């Protein structure tokens, strides 16, 4: 177990280096030089050249990479052109909003997916199973932005029940419960959209895993002992099912971050995804690269966490 964790940790080092190389290449490939917008446009060409030289613009590529890496390791991801602030503080100001949205949609998808998956597995090849399966497929197949816009059209525009976009009602100062309620009202639709895809895939996973567990010997033993069907499913099978599901949920975090980009863009939710889209639209390259770097590292850490959790849960896992 300790050996596995250690080896798995060693493995992340080359991946971390790989991530940094890809991000650095994208930084280098970006059109124009990133410093031109920071300099006084009235400077002569000669002076500009000198300043670029001082900044290390003409260093050999390997030297540039290590200089960049050293700065990145110290948390210096550059300076956002659009916001005139350091990239890290811009990201920091939006990060919480994405965490709230993702966390809530994750909870919702778990609450829906696991019971549905279990029901569909225990009633395999019945009408209930088919209906749940078809809904899962529909959830996997509908483009999230299309689903989001349908919801906006029906609930916000036509019925007028919910706000169209944003996170808080502008021009009104609320506090306490009213404030929380206002945010919840704004969050409901983006949360459903973001939860949709993960719910569908989690449901499929729960179903197939549960079917497998119900075929095992210890379930058969329990059944032959005369244990009630209900307690077999909820006490014996589900308990064994929940642990691997934790790792599946952890593994879904990267796809949640990817989905947040589209969802936040449609609903104008002020999180990392929306920030990323805006940065791309306004060609704010330092900010784009900072976000990409951070998101990739988050995915790496969650994947590592999922693997370690899995090894903790399932003692049979061996490193190959």
């Amino acid at each position, binding site marked *: 177990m300790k050996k596995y964790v250690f080896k798995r940790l060693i493995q992340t080092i080359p*991946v971390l280096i790989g991530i940094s190389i890809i991000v650095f290449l*994208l930084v280098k490939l970006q*059109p124009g030089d990133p410093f031109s917008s920071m300099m006084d446009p009235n400077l002569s060409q000669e002076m500009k050249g000198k300043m670029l030289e001082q900044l290390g613009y003409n260093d050999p590529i390997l030297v540039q990479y290590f200089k960049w890496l050293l700065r990145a390791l110290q948390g210096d991801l550059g300076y956002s052109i659009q916001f005139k602030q350091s990239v890290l503080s811009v990201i920091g100001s939006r990060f919480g909003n994405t965490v709230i949205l993702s966390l809530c949609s994750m909870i919702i998808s778990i609450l829906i997916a696991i019971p549905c998956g279990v029901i569909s597995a225990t009633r395999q090849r019945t009408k209930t199973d088919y209906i749940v399966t078809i809904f899962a497929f529909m959830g996997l*197949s509908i483009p999230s932005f299309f689903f989001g816009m*349908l919801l906006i059209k029906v609930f916000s*525009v036509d019925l007028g029940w919910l706000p169209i976009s944003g996170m808080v009602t502008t021009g009104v100062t609320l506090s306490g419960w009213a404030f929380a309620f206002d945010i919840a009202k704004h969050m409901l639709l983006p949360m459903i959209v973001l939860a949709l895809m993960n719910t569908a895939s989690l449901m499929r996973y729960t179903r197939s895993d549960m079917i497998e567990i119900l075929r095992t010997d210890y379930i058969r033993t329990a059944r032959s002992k005369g244990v009630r069907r209900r307690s077999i499913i909820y006490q014996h099978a589900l308990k064994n099912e929940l642990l691997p599901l934790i790792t599946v949920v952890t593994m879904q975090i990267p796809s949640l971050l*990817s*989905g947040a*980009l589209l969802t936040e863009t449609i609903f104008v939710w002020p999180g990392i995804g929306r920030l990323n889209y805006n940065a791309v639209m306004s060609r704010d390259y330092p900010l784009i690269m900072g976000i990409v770097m951070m998101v990739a590292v988050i*995915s790496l850490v969650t994947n590592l966490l999922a693997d370690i959790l899995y090894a903790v849960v399932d003692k049979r896992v061996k490193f190959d």
Partner: protein
Amino acid sequence: MLFYLICLKGGRELKHTILRRFLKNKLAMIGFIFLTLFVLIAIFAPILTTYARDSIDLMSIESYPSLKHLLGTDELGRDVFTRLLYGGRVSLGVAVSATVLQLFIGVTLGSISGFYGRWIDNVIMRLVDTVMCFPFFVIAITIAAVIGPSVWNIILIIGLLQWTGVARIVRAEILSLKQSEFIEAARAMGLSNFEIIFNHLLPNTLSPVIVNATLSVAHGILMEAGLSFLGLGVKQPQPSWGNILSAAQSMRVLQYEWWLWIPAGLLVFLSVLSINFVGDGLRDALDPKMKI
């Protein structure tokens, strides 16, 4: 094409079992029929409509669906129905091409990794891990911002980011097949490594690869639609289902002009749904125990 590939797999007996299992699966058959329909519509687009792709009708701009314009016209007076037909060519074409690209990269790297093992395997697998760390839309819009949006660039972006799944599958299959006796026999006969991989190992990895490729086409359609919707994919005037959908970013269109975006969204939804049904049916038919 698909059935031909599957039929390569085994003798006549097996062929029939697989085909029968697939035909018996109702959802898969419905999916297959819809999919064929969509492909035919895309191929025969010029025959099915009397308008040219970009022809402008100045007399009717943003007009309601009518007999003259089956699904109305857009803000430039172009026939929406026509653009959906041509858009299908782009959307399906991008998805299929990107799948071919990712199959090429994934099968090559996966088989090298699985067959040679040791440090080569280590290097390739760390590359897989690295690419998998970048959530798709985050990295895709970044690359699109650097290299610019176009049809070819989208195919490149999807292909270069999505090959990791196939590579992992092929690697795992080859790892488990490598030690079997028929490979030892092939070695004893003096076949080269390339011959062993290409003629003896790869045909045996076919079923999971086919299932994965089918689902990749579905993902490809969703990804193209997402990128084009954000304005970082296929560019106007070339139509794709995704960039037709982006009309709905305008509040007026969202509220009053349903024909500009709902049909495009439904087409994406239905085509992806049918491909997913077909993929699921193929998995059940080829190997019910397979886990993808």
